[in-house]
């Protein structure tokens, strides 16, 4: 199994506002505190490479305290020059959110060239709230996503210049310099919440599918749908096409790990993902079929998720190294996920570094049967 260190770069704070997204006033953001946090978080990502993590993950979110990386490519650029082995996974760029998605083709190619081909390029639609933050019409989200993805993939693989005349994006000259170093292009991943349309789209193109913060039963169901779709397209999914992103908390014993998880992981759900209800469901962001599925068995709002539910439904992994190993076996053996992305929070920068070290020394080595395999070979393109 491969391990990727995932960072949200949250601006951890308590507040009584109805929403941590869109409307939480940025006067609550202290840039001096932000400076400290950015540098600690980047130290943690660099340390992860030092400890043996296979990949480092950054992602895009806007106007919130949950994740302060509006430009993941900026953070990836900082990591490119401070690391030399780990993959750098951008999970991902919000394609429909850009007015000029050719910039994504350019920026990711820059990172790929400068890093010597270590970049993984996630393509996402951006979450619901981001359509309020950017002004992009949510009813165009899916079509813009597909069109931008096609444009970027063609820009990476077809010799330029060529003309592109889409519904949303139009260019007379598509000819980005540089071209990516990885051939035919950097691996593309699809982080998603499991809409059947995206599963089908990713499986058809061999793009790894990443489930983010999802109950384990639903992960199993979506993985099943993805594997089926791959078979339908005439191939068997590699384990490295099935990826999960969930928080892991490890400590000397279960009780200590539980206390840390209850406090720090639950902040992500209860406060970080607290959202004014209309921001969850902008019109047209979901297809009506997806909406009906959602309404028929609505998952709990993250802000209302209790620790007991998160624990019982497998949103998180916590415990002593032995417990964490057992819980991870479910992902490696039963779900057959090839890559686990996870962030850690030990309550302080030092506590987080210690937790990372414990995980690297007492958990990771037990899952290294595949150490010699390149997880990006033959997938994502």
């Amino acid at each position, binding site marked *: 199994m491969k391990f990727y260190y995932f960072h949200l770069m949250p601006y951890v704070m308590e507040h009584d506002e109805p929403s941590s997204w869109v409307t939480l006033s940025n006067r609550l953001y202290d840039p001096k505190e932000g400076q400290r946090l950015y540098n600690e978080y980047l130290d943690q990502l660099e340390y992860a490479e030092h400890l043996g993590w296979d990949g480092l993950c950054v992602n895009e979110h806007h106007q919130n305290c949950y994740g302060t990386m509006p430009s993941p490519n900026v953070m990836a650029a900082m990591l490119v020059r401070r690391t030399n082995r780990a993959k750098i996974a951008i999970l991902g760029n919000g394609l429909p959110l850009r007015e000029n998605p050719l910039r994504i083709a350019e920026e990711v190619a820059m990172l790929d060239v400068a890093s010597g081909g270590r970049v993984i390029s996630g393509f996402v639609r951006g979450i619901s709230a981001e359509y*309020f933050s950017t002004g992009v019409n949510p009813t165009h989200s899916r079509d813009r996503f597909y069109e931008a993805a096609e444009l970027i993939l063609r820009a990476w693989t077809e010799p330029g210049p060529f003309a592109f005349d889409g519904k949303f994006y139009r260019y007379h000259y598509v000819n980005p310099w540089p071209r990516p170093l990885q051939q035919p292009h950097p691996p593309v991943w699809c982080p998603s919440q499991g809409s059947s349309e995206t599963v089908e789209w990713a499986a058809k193109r061999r793009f790894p599918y990443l489930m983010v913060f999802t109950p384990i039963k639903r992960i199993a169901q979506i993985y099943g749908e993805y594997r089926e779709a791959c078979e339908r397209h005439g191939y068997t999914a590699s384990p490295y096409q099935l990826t999960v992103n969930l928080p892991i908390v490890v400590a000397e014993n279960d009780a200590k790990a539980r206390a840390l998880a209850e406090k720090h992981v639950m902040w992500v759900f209860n406060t970080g993902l607290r959202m004014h209800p209309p921001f969850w469901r*902008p019109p047209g962001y979901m297809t009506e079929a997806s909406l009906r599925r959602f309404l028929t068995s609505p998952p709990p709002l993250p802000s209302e998720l209790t620790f007991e539910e998160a624990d019982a439904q497998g949103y998180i992994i916590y415990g002593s190294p032995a417990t964490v190993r057992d819980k991870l076996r479910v992902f490696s053996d039963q779900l057959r996920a090839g890559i686990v992305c996870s962030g850690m929070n030990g309550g302080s920068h030092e506590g987080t570094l210690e937790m990372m070290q414990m995980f690297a020394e007492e958990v990771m080595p037990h899952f290294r049967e595949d150490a010699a395999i390149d997880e990006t070979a033959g997938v994502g393109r």
Partner: protein
Amino acid sequence: MAGEPAHHELSVRGTAVDMLSAGAGPDLLFLHGAGGAGRWLEFQDRLAGHFHVRFPSHPGHGGSPAAEWIEHISDLAFHYLDLLDSLRLERVHLVGASLGGWIAAEIAVMASHRLASLTLIDPVGIKVEGWIYPFLFGMDIPEIVQTVFHNPMAALALAPPDQSVETLAQQYRQGTAIARISWNPYLYDPLLRRRLARIATPTLLCWGAHDRLAPLDPCGQVWAKEVPGARLRVFPESGHVPHLEEPGAVADAIVEFCGRGEGPR
């Protein structure tokens, strides 16, 4: 008063339309606002005492299925010109409220010759300097009611019958149909304002004195200035939806306006 309205299922150039109608007299087409589809209330009843009222639901609203081809407000304007053609209505009194007022104004700048008169009830649709329409998509129900209604009790007439998956899916479909044409720019067509001078039919502007979505000052004043010869009537006990808040008074104003002989009957 007219009796129960008749229900029609039409096909307008292949687009399915659910329509109510009642009354006798000159032809009147009513274009509803957000949430108003299929709600035959006192206002429509009053009009049906004087006109042959036709009240279609916009595609994606009420009983009319979504129409993917509608991506711009002008698509809706052409859709209603097509509807007039398919009903063989040469000229109608056109009444539109809020979003329906916006559509009605788009029709009027294209084809005033199809209109015997035009009534716009708190329309949106133009950019007004110094005013940004409050973003209803970002509001929960209490905030929306607070913004749209002066008399919140009037909102009960638009309350959904239940919270079933079917009802919620229909509301989502309506929101989607509106967002497709008006998420950004929000509730206006940048080209419409300079075209309002083309309107060549007698025009009545009905405005709620307490409209907080498109306030009388500045929005109503700008419409009154831009539409040639428009007459502005203010309804003192209303917010954004006077036809729901003071239905009798608004209907009377329309009946009176259309009877003034300024346009052919």
